[in-house]
């Protein structure tokens, strides 16, 4: 396998790489059961987390992953207000590269920024979410979670529910699941689900169609009110139309379907309280697997700083 410098999208990976990363995530997760949860794989390497968008979960997940591989972690905080308008990302990266970083984990509201940074520096760049474009580490942890639950992803049916148009999670997770042989469908409000002609992914009309489609996993996207300047839809009745209500939870239970969500959950919007305690709710598994998947990703990449 050719050494890979960056992880920007799932599309850019070969099938072999996807399998390798998923496979070594299993080994990484075994480390968690030991009393010393640390291996020296990245000892002496430096990891920088560069988040232009606020995020606690993804950032800490990457930081824990890097720590467990014995890397040194630096956190670079850029609140949106401090990024001067018109300031170029290139200039920020030049500054950071003087610190001789080996890995840069970046999140930005603009789609495509990680690729620009990757072209511009020798460090391995990991896309931790760019605009509505991609979130590959989320895709890996989702695929890993489904594989762990069902033994394999191939042949599973997953429906992703919510605002697909603005979701990087839907884009990346649907790609990895389909690459691994799963069937994916979308369901969501009106034109916030792009037509199949654009996505290649079938669209289900409502919850009744979902239950008829017989999914193995129901994946609910987070309603992101904070990101959006003018709301895309009224949140007040979202739960009734698109959320897992208690009535729907009973049908989910009857069909033995799993529930997933990238977190953090808006209780009473995407999921009712009872759904969080449901026996097949995999939300906490996703968080734990996120660390294993990110360890595996860091381990898989080869920064150009080494040569």
């Amino acid at each position, binding site marked *: 396998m050719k050494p890979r410098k960056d992880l920007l999208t799932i599309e850019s990976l070969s099938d072999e790489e996807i399998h390798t990363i998923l496979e070594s995530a299993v080994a990484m997760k075994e480390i968690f059961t030991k009393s010393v949860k640390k291996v020296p794989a990245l000892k002496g390497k430096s990891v920088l987390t560069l988040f232009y968008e606020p995020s606690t979960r993804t950032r800490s997940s990457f930081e824990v992953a890097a720590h467990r591989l014995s890397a040194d972690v630096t956190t670079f905080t850029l609140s949106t207000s401090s990024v001067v308008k018109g300031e*170029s*990302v*290139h200039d920020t990266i030049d500054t950071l590269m003087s610190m001789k970083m080996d890995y840069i984990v970046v999140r*930005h509201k*603009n*789609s*495509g*920024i990680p*690729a*620009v940074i990757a072209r511009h520096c020798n460090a391995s760049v990991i896309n931790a979410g*760019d*605009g*509505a*474009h*991609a979130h590959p580490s989320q895709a890996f942890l989702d695929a890993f979670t489904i594989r762990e639950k069902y033994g394999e992803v191939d042949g599973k049916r997953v429906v992703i529910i919510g605002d697909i*148009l*603005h979701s*990087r999670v839907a*884009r990346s997770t649907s790609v990895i699941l389909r690459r691994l042989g799963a069937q994916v469908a979308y369901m969501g409000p009106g034109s916030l689900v*792009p037509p199949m*002609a*654009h*996505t290649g992914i079938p669209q289900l009309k409502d919850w009744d169609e979902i239950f008829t489609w017989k999914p193995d996993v129901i994946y609910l996207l987070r309603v992101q009110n904070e990101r959006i*300047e003018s709301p895309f839809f009224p949140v007040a009745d979202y739960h009734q139309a698109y959320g897992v209500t208690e009535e729907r939870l009973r049908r989910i239970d009857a069909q033995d379907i799993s529930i997933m969500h990238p977190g953090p959950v808006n209780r009473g919007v995407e999921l009712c309280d009872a759904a969080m305690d449901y026996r097949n709710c995999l939300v906490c598994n996703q968080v734990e697997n996120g660390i294993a998947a990110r360890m595996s990703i860091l381990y898989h990449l080869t920064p150009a700083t080494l040569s």
Partner: protein
Amino acid sequence: MTNSFITNAVWAPSGKKVHLRLGKAGNSVRLDPAAATAVPDTEDVKGITSTDVELPDGAHCTDASGKLLLPALFDLHTHIEIPGRSKRECIMRAGEAAIHGGVWGMLVLPSPAFCFDNGAALDSFREAVEERSVAEMVPCGCITLGMLGEQQAPYNTLATTRDITILCDGDRAPQNLLLLYRAMQYAVDLDLTFAARADVPALTAHTYVHPGSTAYKLGLHPCPPCAEEIGTETLLRMAEATGAKLHLQLVSTAESVRIIRRAKERGVKVTAEVALHHLLYTHEDIGDYNTVFKTTPPLRDKEDGEALLEGVKDGTIDCIVSAHTPCTPFAKKQDFISAPEGMVALDTLLPTLYTKLVKPGRLSWAELIQACCVKPALIARPWDHEEGASSEVPLLLFDPSAECVVDESTLACGTLNTPLLGETLCGRVTLPL
């Protein structure tokens, strides 16, 4: 008149072989204002004779066999500002680029560097053009002061004392429709043309690409075509109500073409233009965030491109323009959302039109001359076509068999933001205008 001739050139509109007498007025044609459809035939053109006519004794002849003779192009949509460069250098480079591309004259839209909202700015611009530019540059006045959309510019003075014929606020129309409506009412007597790109800014704010597979794949907010179509209807209704002349800039959707066609049928005084890149490329060319293809309005679907070309052929769309916009390499190296919009196209205009449209049979020479020479000049320089006016359009020789690789050395415009970089184009403009 000199005794020098260019012989055996092919007059592009008719395909007839002609001789051309070089000289003060010999190497230019008079555009027929009465019917923009009537490209002057060889018999009507001073200095051009058909090959059956014998050349005078002692004539100095240059053989132009295999070359085409046609009127030079006029470009109705150019931005000549190069970020970080001086105004004079911008003017000089744009002039050189124009000559490369077979363009003898262009309408220069106001920009932050060239804010044509006062007489002094126009005077100093014209002085610099006189001094530096090899091509004719017609400044387009501002509708509002500083193009801010708040206060009307003194366009009465600009029209009467500085020969301004077209008004425009850069690439956008004032958002305040009442202001625009009043400006149109006021300007009717001045015979000014209002140039504007149709848009509803609330619908297109923070959008970057046409809705489609590219928007989905790249996670970029899509720009709904209905914004342009609503804007088109709005501007047309206002022009119709006030009687003002309207020029719609950068029409990009199939539905806009249909709306304009209907308006023309009911007699609205409207002309329209399409950018060459909207005829040649689609949103799919953006690929993996190639910022060269970032434009406003965004590149659309294949169907839109076909409808636009159909509009050019049936006269609904009057002109094809370069929408020449220099952007520095650094600016275009940024991410797609941060990078500025626009391409440079002056340098390559005629060879691109020939290679991509005329040669594959999508556009005839006669249609090209209508859309790139005759009609744009009529819109920008109506005074040329009044009774008794003597201005003429220069002719150029075009060698369709020549090939030219587009690279840094062949681009005079000063920046490299063209998707044609590295491509080989057919045809070369061989006679200095």
